[in-house]
């Protein structure tokens, strides 16, 4: 692979990791959300590089677009970008970081370095991950999961409504003769 290619990938990697860390570290929830969007976008580029255009675009539209917007909306709605009060679990941080490092070492050491010999990316056939192909597969071979996802979404919708439906105030109930 060319040097530019390598630099390109390195750049992506740096952005992906940096944005993730930034999301973790930044105290402001809105900033975090924006860093996450950046991260998702970077990952989408990686998807493209991996020959998954459909997923990449879905990533942008669904994740970076819809979902993160929803997040931003809620943050704004609740005005919850920053929290007051002090950190109650002080011992957590070092422990968590140590554990995280161990975890990384475990996964990276054993998966990345020890076992995954360099295996160059294969040039993909043109229609491997085409939307058409994906769509066909999804509605034939994966018809059942597809249906299931529908029900998941439905129940999520019902649930979301249940959770946020305005509760009538006790005074209202009283005046309307409800129990």
């Amino acid at each position, binding site marked *: 692979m060319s040097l530019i290619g390598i630099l390109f990938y390195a750049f992506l990697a740096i952005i992906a990791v940096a944005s993730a860390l930034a999301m973790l570290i930044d105290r402001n929830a809105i900033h975090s959300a924006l860093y996450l969007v950046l991260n998702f976008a970077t990952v989408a580029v990686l998807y493209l590089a991996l020959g998954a255009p459909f997923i990449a675009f879905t990533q942008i539209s669904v994740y970076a677009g819809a979902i993160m917007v929803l997040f931003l909306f809620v943050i704004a709605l609740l005005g919850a970008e920053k929290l007051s009060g002090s950190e*109650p*679990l002080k011992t*957590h941080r070092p*422990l*968590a970081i140590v*554990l*995280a490092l*161990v*975890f990384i070492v*475990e*996964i990276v050491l*054993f998966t990345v370095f020890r076992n995954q010999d360099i295996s160059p990316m294969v040039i993909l056939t043109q229609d491997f991950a085409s939307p058409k192909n994906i769509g066909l597969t999804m509605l034939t071979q994966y018809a059942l999961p597809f249906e299931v996802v529908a029900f998941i979404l439905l129940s999520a919708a019902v649930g979301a409504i249940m959770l946020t439906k305005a509760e009538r105030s006790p005074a209202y109930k009283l005046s309307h003769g409800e129990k």
Partner: protein
Amino acid sequence: MFLHETTSMDPRFLLVPLVVFLPVVGILLNWLFGKRLGEKGIGAIASLAAGGSFVISVILMLALREHTEGAVVPFMQWISVGSLDLNWTFRVDTLAVVMMLVVSGVGTLIHVYAVGYMHEDVHHQGDPARFRRFFIFLNLFIAAMMILVSADNFLMLFVGWEGVGLCSYLLIGFWFEKGEDGLGNARAAKKAFVANRIGDFGLLIAIFLIFWNFGSLDFETVFHQVPFFASSQPGVLVAIALFMLLGVTGKSAQIPLYVWLPDAMAGPTPVSALIHAATMVTAGVYLMTRSQVIFSAAPQAQQVVMWIGAITAIFAALIAVGQFDIKKVLAYSTISQLGFMVAAVGMGAEVAAMFHLVTHAFFKALLFLSAGSVILGMEKGLETNHHGHGEGGEHTDPQDMRNMGGLRKKMPITFWVYLAGTLALAGIAPLAGFFSKDEILAAANETNKFVFVILISAAFLTAFYMGRQVWMVFFGKTRSSAAEHAKESAPLVTVPLIILAILSILGGGLNFPGVLTLEHWLEHTINIPHESAFNLIVAAGSLAIALVAILLSWMVYGRTPLADSKSIDPLAKSLGGLFRAMNKKFMVDELYQAVILKPYTRISDFFANPVDQGFIDGIVNGMGSLANSLANGLRKLQNGYARTYALSVVVGIVAILAYLLFRV
């Protein structure tokens, strides 16, 4: 249930179970109907039951005269397990019948006496309802004692052995609310039982040893094998003999277990006479005589027996000298005399022991009963005094000889019979004690001079303390108002005394030197290696010593009687510390208290609290609290923070991965 022996035997032998069952019938009758019968009826039934036993014993004796080999009368299967096959079998032989006669004969007399005595006593103690109970216990005792002496095996002997122990317990504690602190009698009863149990422990071990070595507990079977064991395993025989001896020291009040007997005087006087002088305490002597084969095959053990008997004889005699309680003197005297008998057995002079046993039963029963009569007289005196003079001053102990004096005139019959008993006991010829004691002394003279000296000293002391007693009780002037008002007892009391006095006087004839009726009688049952010879020198010597002792006692007590109940014993002045030690019984009770009882109490407290509740239960409860503290510790981890929970998931996966990956 009942065993039948088909071999022909004198049908009179088949009556033998009645010696046990007549008293049992007496118990049942009195138990069921006693309340309605009244004192007379109760007394009559009980006495008839005991008398019936006596009659049967006599019949058996007559039968034995014709069939000297005796008989074994199987009666009932008892325990039959594996190799253990134990039956209740009666044994009628000359030895057993002697005991039966003594037990039932003396027993009957005492029953009769008790009818009179207890009538007074229950009224004096304030619980007439206990009259019936007394006779039930008394009959129970006769039954148990009969089981003991009529047994054909060690187990049935043991049954009787424990049974008489129980009766002793019940009767010592008869006035269970009386005595020191109100608990004195109860404690005395308990002491007797426990001391006896220690002895029983020894006997039990002996029985186990016998069973596992001889394969049986039947006398015949066991004794037949003894010669074989004597050559092959003499150690076993020694062990058996010594454990048996432990039993004997318990029952027959020898060192070291004699301590219960003086306290046993807490029982009503007929009990002291019957159980703690004439019959029960001689069971040990009987046992050893019965097991003569074993003892004679174990000379080492026999030596021990002899020494224990001799030391007990002198030791108890010494204590007797220092006592003031009329019954205590007799009690220690009993211990001492039992020591004579045990020593005799130890010397192989079983006949002498048996002879002394019989005569001792006569005169000691007589002495006790007379003492009882004295006490009754004193109590009556107390009551009259109480009624006559209102307050009557401080409490007067009716048993303390210092409170007596001059009773010779108040209670003449009692005095005369008492005198007879005293002379018999002191070994004055030709009364019963002279002959029997002399046989023992003669045997000692032949066997071991040292023991002989000890025994003869004991005989000297015997005469001395008996003389002291007579002088103090019957002579001089009355030293308390109770003695002043003392009255002679009723005929119901005195008639048995007279009979016993006659027996005490004539009892020596039983084994009169040269005639040796008893010896010839017993030789059908026990081995008599050589005929007891009358040793004139010994006899004369002992008689002289007894006379000297009586003279000495007259010099100390008779010539100048005690002035009043407060005055100090003249011996105390001359002997000082020794007398105090004798009076305090050489502090043996206190020693036992300090060495055994206190530590045991402490140990059991220690076991009960620090060990059981503290340590063992502490471990149990500790496990519970450990679990609880663990629970509370783990509970703190559950701190309510979702992030902590997430962290625990991470901990989990990191740990699992670490394990898995390092294993791959």
